[in-house]
């Protein structure tokens, strides 16, 4: 059961081969066995999960089950949950219990899914290695001395280690796709506005988007069906007809034009990554797809643009953590201003404080035009690059990350080196575009490589279809990591 797809689990539940209680217990046992080593979960409440599983079993016996009823799903600890504490990986919220559920949580609850626990993450989703979590780093199930990527590192590691059949994540500059790539699983960042941000703790609101992490493209489609949809409580949620992402998985590859951006295959990519990605592209060509050389000329500027816009939005969003309404408050202080300053100095970690300070500076008087407005203009150039590219191709493919998983501590002292590692995942959210990552091989160290597939606005079905066809011909996504043998 641990290595089964969601549709296989769904079929087993429907055929009464297993109950949700039994299935949930299997994954809880797996978590108990592995979490000490991998630290993928911040909060697990077995009684809470099993109670939900019992409710799912009752619902099934009444004949009211849907495809996700009774399936345990882990949630990134950025989604507010009434039943489980919500920390966002921060000391600031270490004891926080939300009085309401995020929209995404409501959707999974309505589908009858079981909350398996809350997964570890970089603090306030700011990081690419899961090393900024107040609750300690997550370890990569393929090599415990390496990072799983971030910020949804706990969700990716949990799925990779088969501690959860699927998980939720959020992506601001690559936080779903990059950890999926580094742990050998699949992750999808949807078009901006497709998944409601209600109850998803805000980092950079013009970029943040929730999405699924799972073992296969088919599973991602099933999860996106539950997650996507209009929600009036998110002012950027889009009103559009619901799609069934599972219906179009058997897509025709013949004649499909695959754009290969020169900028994504230049120097700075590890040879093992390049080789695996190029082989995957050749497989699509062997199925009749046509490779088209394209250019995204402002790719190198995406990282500096992102490190103006995301910190600017974060400095505003995180001003709510003031020690008054919720979260941590410092013990001793002289006056109100001192209370704010000490509370925030103690409650936030170094990377979060760094980004708040950068954001405060680029928004401050005299610098706004030179940096923030400038970055918004270059952001438009990046979106225009994609618009020109999608006039010539149906999907864009390239590496998700220039490297495979790096050792813990390798980049944690040098923020700029850490930021540059996200060069291929940052452009899509700046343009509001969807992107996904699927495993496409291993490097010489046996570490997984991710293939990134980007599509035009609302092209999720096409992207998932291409990924699904690839996974029917390959088995990279079925390999279980060596630190967590089945």
């Amino acid at each position, binding site marked *: 059961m641990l290595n089964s797809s969601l549709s296989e689990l769904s079929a087993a539940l429907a055929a009464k081969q297993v109950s949700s209680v039994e299935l949930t217990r299997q994954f809880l046992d797996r978590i108990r066995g592995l979490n000490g080593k991998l630290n993928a979960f911040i909060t697990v409440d077995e009684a809470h999960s099993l109670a939900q599983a019992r409710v799912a079993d009752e619902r099934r016996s009444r004949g009211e089950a849907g495809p996700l009823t009774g399936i345990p799903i882990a949630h990134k600890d950025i989604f507010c949950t009434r039943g489980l504490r919500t920390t966002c990986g921060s000391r600031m919220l270490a004891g926080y219990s939300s009085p309401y559920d995020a929209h995404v949580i409501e959707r999974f609850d309505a589908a009858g899914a079981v909350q398996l626990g809350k997964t570890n993450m970089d603090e306030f989703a700011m990081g690419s290695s899961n090393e900024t979590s107040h609750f300690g780093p997550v370890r990569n199930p393929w090599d415990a001395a390496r990072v799983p990527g971030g910020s949804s590192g706990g969700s990716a590691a949990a799925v990779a280690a088969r501690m959860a059949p699927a998980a939720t994540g959020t992506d601001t500059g690559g936080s779903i796709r990059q950890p999926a790539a580094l742990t050998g699983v699949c992750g999808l960042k949807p078009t901006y506005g497709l998944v409601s941000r209600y109850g998803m703790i805000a980092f950079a609101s013009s970029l943040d988007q929730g999405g699924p992490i799972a073992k296969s493209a088919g599973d991602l489609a099933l999860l996106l069906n539950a997650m996507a949809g209009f929600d009036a409580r998110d002012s950027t949620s889009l009103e559009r007809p619901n799609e069934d992402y599972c219906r179009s998985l058997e897509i025709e590859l013949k004649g499909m034009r695959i754009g290969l951006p020169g900028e994504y295959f230049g120097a700075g990519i590890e040879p093992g990554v390049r080789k695996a990605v190029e082989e995957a592209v050749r497989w699509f060509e062997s199925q009749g797809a046509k490779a088209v050389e394209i250019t995204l000329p402002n790719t190198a500027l995406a990282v500096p*643009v992102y490190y103006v816009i995301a910190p600017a939005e974060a400095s505003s969003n995180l001003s709510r953590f003031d020690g008054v309404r919720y979260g941590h408050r410092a013990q001793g202080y002289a006056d109100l201003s001192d209370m704010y300053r000490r509370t925030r100095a103690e409650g936030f970690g170094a990377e979060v404080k760094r980004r708040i300070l950068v954001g405060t500076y680029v928004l401050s008087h005299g610098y706004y035009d030179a940096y923030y407005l400038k970055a918004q203009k270059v952001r438009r150039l990046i979106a225009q690059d994609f618009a020109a590219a999608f006039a010539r191709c149906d999907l864009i493919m390239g590496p998700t990350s220039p490297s495979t998983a790096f050792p813990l501590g390798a980049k944690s002292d040098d923020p700029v080196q850490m930021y540059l590692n996200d060069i291929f995942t940052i452009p899509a959210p700046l343009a509001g575009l969807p992107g996904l990552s699927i495993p496409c091989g291993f490097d010489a160290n046996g570490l997984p490589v991710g293939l990134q597939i980007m599509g035009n606005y609302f092209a999720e079905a096409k992207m998932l279809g291409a990924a699904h066809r690839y996974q029917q011909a390959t088995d990279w996504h079925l390999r279980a990591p060596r630190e967590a043998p089945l």
Partner: protein
Amino acid sequence: MILLPRPPASMSLTPDQLQRIALLARIEVSPEELRGVTDRLNQVFGLIDQLQALDTQSIEPMSHPLDAHMTLPQRLRPDQVTEPDRREAYQKGAPAVEQGLYLVPKVLE
């Protein structure tokens, strides 16, 4: 795209300037941390400074990620109360509350 002959002065900060920003951000930076935090921030500003080489005079700033693709509706709703009063639930997580009020240090003598 025209590359300017030379980027404008870099945005590098002195420790004193950093203290001013930290005050605006309501984050205490201790004297021991000051040098390290300033150095790391200046690394980040070095990265951000790359933007200055680009001439963007004729480009419209993009503030919404989908505004290149579609016209976005401004949704309005009737001016009606839709939420129940859940004050107690919301105040349960507050560090200091008394009689339904959030307690903060005295700001007026």
